[in-house]
């Protein structure tokens, strides 16, 4: 009884709070890193070196006036951000933060909320629901810019999900299981992270991940200069904060999945090499966080460096380049696994 309700409830609260704080400080990190790369300093006034800036942003967004445009569908306008936000947070329940477990008052507590047999399928399914929230948000705004922005964004997300699915399948050919914990265990058994064995799959997953979250260089649907602001033009105050939160939570999610699938989850580098056993002293959770932090830094780095794709170039890359390459990768991997057994 306790282990089915109380422990997961506590874990859910902890993960929810941790992800919320991480999202808030992601905004700060993004502003600082982009500023340093542009030879300026970013927020410096609020708190020491601007560390309290996310709190100021949160307060500002909460006290702003809540405007619903005339002629907008009120119910759907309200539901749009919620539909995008809930899957972004719900998927964190299957991501393994660490493989170790400890016992509290005699109950076994592991450092992931749950381990479903179909972890990857669950993740791909839930992240597709986020697209619905974007379409609803753009449609219910009763205005041309959000409509165009949301349709473009939805088309982009759908087309890059195909290639992402293929790159995930190329990993599954090695693990024979869809469960996230088992995927990390399989990397431990093989001794190599999947990024080394499947470099093409990893690169394709990264590109599709950046495109899924509508981040630069694939951020035409929400670019400030091209489309006013895309699907969240008419949103203000707390609703905009929910969309914003969903976008950054999606970023953290894609990074965590990339770490779990391709970079060994909570494992140290070269987990089976005895000579590097001193790396195992650092707990798995710290390795996981370091790797996720690297991917988040990579997201911000890409944003600061690259110009954005034009929309037709974006769709061309997705359909004419990434999907064939991902399919070829799957076929090649399957053939090699079969004949090199």
């Amino acid at each position, binding site marked *: 009884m306790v282990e089915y309700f109380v422990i997961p409830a506590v874990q859910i609260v902890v993960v929810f709070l941790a992800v919320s704080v991480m999202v808030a400080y992601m905004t700060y990190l993004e502003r600082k890193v982009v500023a*340093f790369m542009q*030879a*300026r*300093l970013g927020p410096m006034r609020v708190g020491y070196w601007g560390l309290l800036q996310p709190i100021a942003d949160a307060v500002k967004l909460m006290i702003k006036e809540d405007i619903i445009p005339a002629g907008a569908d009120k119910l759907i306008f309200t539901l749009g951000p919620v539909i995008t936000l809930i899957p972004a947070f719900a998927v964190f329940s299957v991501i393994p933060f660490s493989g170790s477990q400890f016992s509290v008052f005699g109950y076994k507590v592991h450092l992931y909320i749950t381990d479903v047999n179909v972890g990857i399928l669950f993740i791909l399914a839930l992240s597709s629901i986020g697209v619905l929230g974007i379409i609803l948000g753009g449609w219910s705004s009763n205005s041309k810019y959000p409509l165009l922005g949301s349709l473009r964004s939805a088309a982009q997300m759908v087309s890059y999900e195909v290639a992402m699915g293929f790159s995930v399948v190329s990993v599954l050919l090695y693990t024979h299981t869809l469960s996230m914990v088992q995927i990390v265990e399989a990397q431990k058994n093989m001794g190599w992270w999947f990024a080394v064995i499947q470099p093409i799959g990893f690169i394709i997953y990264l590109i599709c991940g950046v495109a899924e979250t509508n981040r630069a260089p694939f951020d035409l649907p929400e670019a400030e200069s091209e489309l006013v602001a895309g699907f969240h033009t008419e949103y203000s105050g707390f609703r905009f904060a929910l969309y914003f939160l969903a976008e950054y939570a999606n970023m953290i999610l894609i990074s965590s999945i990339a770490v779990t699938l391709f970079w060994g989850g909570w494992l140290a580098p070269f987990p089976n090499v005895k000579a590097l056993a001193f790396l195992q002293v650092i707990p798995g959770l710290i390795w996981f966080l370091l790797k996720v932090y690297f991917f988040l830094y990579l997201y911000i780095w*890409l944003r*600061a*460096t*690259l110009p954005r794709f034009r929309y037709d170039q974006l769709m061309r890359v997705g359909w004419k380049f990434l999907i064939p390459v991902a399919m070829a990768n799957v076929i090649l991997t399957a053939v090699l696994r079969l004949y090199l057994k």
Partner: protein
Amino acid sequence: MYRLTTFRPKSFFAEFFKSLFFVDLIKGLIVTFYYQKPSENITEQYPKERPRVAERFRGAPRLNKDPETGETLCIACKLCQLACPIDCIEVGSEKVEKKNVLTTFTYDIGHCMYCGLCEDACPTPALELTQDFELASYNRDFIWDRTRLENGPEIVKYKK
């Protein structure tokens, strides 16, 4: 007209592998990575550090007083009033023992264009345009009287 660049045809395979391995992207990423040097940054943290302006910068006006006696240096000659192209200055004086003594001095900084002609016209070092550029205010009291002019600019010091 001559071409500014020469087109050297590059080998197909070199171009193909460069685009396959994202060579130009990685070069761009390296450039932005090495740009991150916050210790060498020259951004001025404005309220803590004020910009250093030149000595001859024409900012807010000030009526100087003699440092030993504390009396005003202005001799009420009204040359500044005559010199001002916009008529911002009004000087009032009265005769005390056959000498002109300054009574009122008003200066309209709203209309003033800070050209410095009044400072040049003044025969004594009384009227001076200081280096104070922070003249924004919450109300429209643009006409400064003699006390405010003599006090000079008040610069708020920020500690953080």
